[in-house]
């Protein structure tokens, strides 16, 4: 195995252009190193380190968007003022990832590109309608996160491409949000289910926009359109949110079939969607 420490993004892109497919990029390594070890230490021929690349280790804003470099660690995201002010939902999701140690190393780019159906930051980013910038030596593409996944652990990235930026629209003042993670324990736990909700409503409590996403529920990331449609134009109420939860559960079974975990997940997905909506709409504190 050859370890490469490129000095800038251009070098990275050239390296992968020349070495693909016998190379892998590594950011925090919290997914990659674990999976290499699980496969009896089958190292790729070349490992290209993305850590410390200034271009993708920063967060900045435009008038409308927050732009996050793919190599930003979860801890950096949790504590960044731009994130706290404009997309606190992502801070909340990132805060619940693994443990402090994992958040110190693990990156948002790694969370997205690893493409696990339970990735916590991805649920939030789907609900936030995030866009991605994908780079190769030839071009920079902008793709919507919801179109990024083919199936579990597989994205549309080509061997000579990497993810460089995540672009997220700032949440409007008064927009409600919520992220709920359910694991088998209170830290260092893979999500059994996670749910993210973003809601805006009128003064009278009529829902204007709604975005819902759930992790460990669908094989491929997606917004829960059917449930969202149910919400829009209606007045916030627990019964309405429960209905949205039930729609989500039905969608899940429709997409995955009845599986070993369905007897548990069916009622619980519905409950968590309801709770996320209650929190996002301000009906339930916490």
């Amino acid at each position, binding site marked *: 195995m050859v370890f490469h420490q490129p000095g800038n993004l251009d070098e990275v892109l050239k390296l992968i252009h020349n070495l693909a497919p016998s190379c892998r990029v590594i950011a925090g390594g919290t997914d990659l190193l674990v999976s290499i070890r699980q496969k009896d230490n089958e190292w790729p021929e070349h490992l290209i380190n993305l850590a410390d690349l200034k271009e993708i280790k920063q967060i900045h804003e435009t008038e409308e968007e927050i732009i996050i470099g793919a190599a930003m660690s979860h801890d950096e995201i949790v504590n960044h003022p731009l994130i706290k002010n404009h997309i606190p939902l992502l801070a909340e999701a990132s805060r619940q990832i693994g443990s402090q140690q994992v958040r110190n190393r693990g990156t948002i780019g790694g969370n997205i590109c690893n493409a696990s159906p339970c990735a916590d930051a991805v649920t939030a980013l789907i609900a936030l309608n995030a866009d991605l910038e994908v780079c190769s030596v030839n071009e920079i593409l902008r793709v919507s996160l919801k179109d990024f996944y083919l199936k579990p*652990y597989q994205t549309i990235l080509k061997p000579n491409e990497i993810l460089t930026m995540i672009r997220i629209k700032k949440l409007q003042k008064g927009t409600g949000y919520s992220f709920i993670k359910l694991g088998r*324990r209170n830290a260092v736990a893979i999500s059994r289910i996670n749910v993210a909700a973003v809601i805006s409503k009128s003064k009278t409590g009529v829902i204007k926009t709604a975005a819902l996403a759930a992790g460990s529920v669908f*094989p*491929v990331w997606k917004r829960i359109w059917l449930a969202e449609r149910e919400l829009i134009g209606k007045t916030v109420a627990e019964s309405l949110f429960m209905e949205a939860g039930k729609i989500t559960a039905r969608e899940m079974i429709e997409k995955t079939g009845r*599986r070993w*975990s369905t007897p548990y997940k069916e009622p*619980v997905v519905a409950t968590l969607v309801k709770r996320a909506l209650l929190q996002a709409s301000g009906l339930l504190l916490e």
Partner: protein
Amino acid sequence: MARYAADYSLPHQLYGCVKYADYPHAEILNIDISEALKINGVEAVLTYKDVPGENRFGLIPNIRILADDRTRYLGDAVALIAARTIEIAKQAARHISIKYHKLPDVIDPRESLKEETIKIHEEGNLVVHHKVLKGDIARGFKQSVHVIEQDFSTPAIEHAYLEPEAALAYPDEQDGIAVIGCLQNIYTSHKVIAAALNLPLAKVKIIQSTMGGSFGGKDEASTLVAARAALLAVKTKRPVKIVNSREDSMIQSYKRHPYYLNYRWGCDQDGRLLAMQHDIIADSGAYCSMTPFVTWRSVVQAAGPYRCPNVKTDVRGVYTNNNYTGAMRGFGSPQVNVAIEIMMDKIAEKTNKSPLEIRLLNGFGDGAVTATGQKLSHDVSLKQVLTIAAEKSDFENKWRQNRSKENQSAPVSKGIGLSCSYRGVSLGAEGVDAASAVVHVQPDGSINVSSGIIDMGQGAQTALAQIAAEVLGVSMKRMRFLEPDTTRVADSGPTVASRGTIMGGGAVKIAAEKVAELIKEILAEKHKIRKESLLLKNEKIETKSGKRVCTFTDAVKLCYAKGTPLFANGVRYIAETDWNEKTGRGNAYFTYVYGANVAEVEVDRETGKVNVTRFISVHDVGKAINKSMVEGQIYGGIAMGTGYAIMESFIQESGMAKTINFDEYYIPTALDVPQMESFIVENPDKHGPFGAKSIGEPALEIVAPTIINAIFNATGKHIYNLPASLEEVLLGKKLRRDVERGSLSCKPEV
């Protein structure tokens, strides 16, 4: 700086690994190692045929160092490899080909004893059947107004010591062999390894390294690693090191026995117990490690600390093709305590009593007679600890409030639970109960203490050194505790059964007293005073009237100048137990300890998530030699018991371990552990040094039922099958993954 077994290395050392069984149950027809031997860097490949001495060991000697006739679980080693690097060794393992004749697997221990089930060992599938019989059980049930019957199950769980097993074995300069290892019971390892190598004990030296936890787990599991390293070292005449990865450790090592329990209790109108019948099956897995002793503790304690005229208990240990099971903190009590304490709450419910009332009504008092017919002659402090636990937690009020409809139908319900237990101290009638220690005061007054009691992180070294310091009247600054090796300290028995302080401490006290006696004799002679009038205190020797004679250091110098080296051996031996296996009656243990726990929980009734928010643990330890270490044991016990209650389960499917690292085998993190309070009660016992009894296992053994009872208080629903996982709490059952892994196999979207 601490050095663990894996930290030791020697020049020219080789690395060892095992070739695992390919099937949980199969006859071994042929093992072909020729391809493996051809690999460059491979120095030795061994099968059972290469073991010069005894390949089998154990209480019932059927644990194989190397699988011979059959494989019996997937953690069996069929061959051993030593190579220049670990990678080469593992590659060689893949090149060993084995011909098998596959046999049916026995997975469910409840099937194991059926006529038609295949026999895993020649002698059949029954490891042991212990009984206790008191009074007339049929009459007891006839007199009962209420009869409650319930099935329970408890899972296999992993010890999860931080340091996986490791050993370094090397030929020494006199045709002998030395092994450095992390071993809970060096004296057993010593005998097993010498027998395997066909060497006299004197030629085998076992050196204890600093240990990174054990919880009962580093007995046979670590002995196997050490024995395998020793076999390879003898064969190659070079040092051989084996370091288990976490996966190796999880796959090979023994677990806590899973239990299937049927409990049937009868009581009168007021809840007074009249009949208790218990039928228990314990899964021993592939071999017999500690099953006869673990289940013996269960049979003795199966009726709990409660008075009842009629008791019938049957405990059977049976073989299966699961991981073998053995010693783990609690040793056969955590399982029965789950059933006992839930049953107690059910009786309370039936007779409209609170959990506290029902326990005070039935609990042992001074002079009570146990289910085995033993009359308790020490301070029976059960009601004392129960009362303290209830008062400190405001138990009765909270318990009543939580039973409101409002609480029990809220999305997140609060609950509080109580339980209590008594526990026999040390080995009891299981075996010879003796421990040795050496106290050696050096010529400058610094002091070495050693004992065959192993410090696994529990702090035995500190407690034992403190006892010597107390006897010699000196400060802890002088003390240095030496890790034992088998050539230096005589057999002290195993460091198990919460016997470190009471037995090892007892031995240290005797050794230190002998040294004190030597000092007094020399000084008495010099100063022409009666030695009985001398005291060792505050770094000085004084007379009882307070007159200073000299400093401790000067006294030591004087002794050496007079040709009296200050070196003494102490042996503590207690033989006040008796047991009749046929009738199940006798004085099982020489003394008992008492504890009571209260847990508070919040149960998310819509997701099944349980948060344990507060925990109060009260224990009578006899005498706390070191208060913070007692508290450490209590807090650790609560954390470990919380895992047993709500999340831990070593999952095997058809004999295949599924949870072989901490990504899937969940133990509580700091955020899952409740806020904890401990209360230490001291009723000194005549058997222990300064009255000390024990705390290591008591601290753990009722944590789980306390939490389960709290869940009942919150939801009105009992949990009978541990752990109280998300699914168990929400649906009342476990869900088993029937496919590879959820996320890998779910249907891709079109």
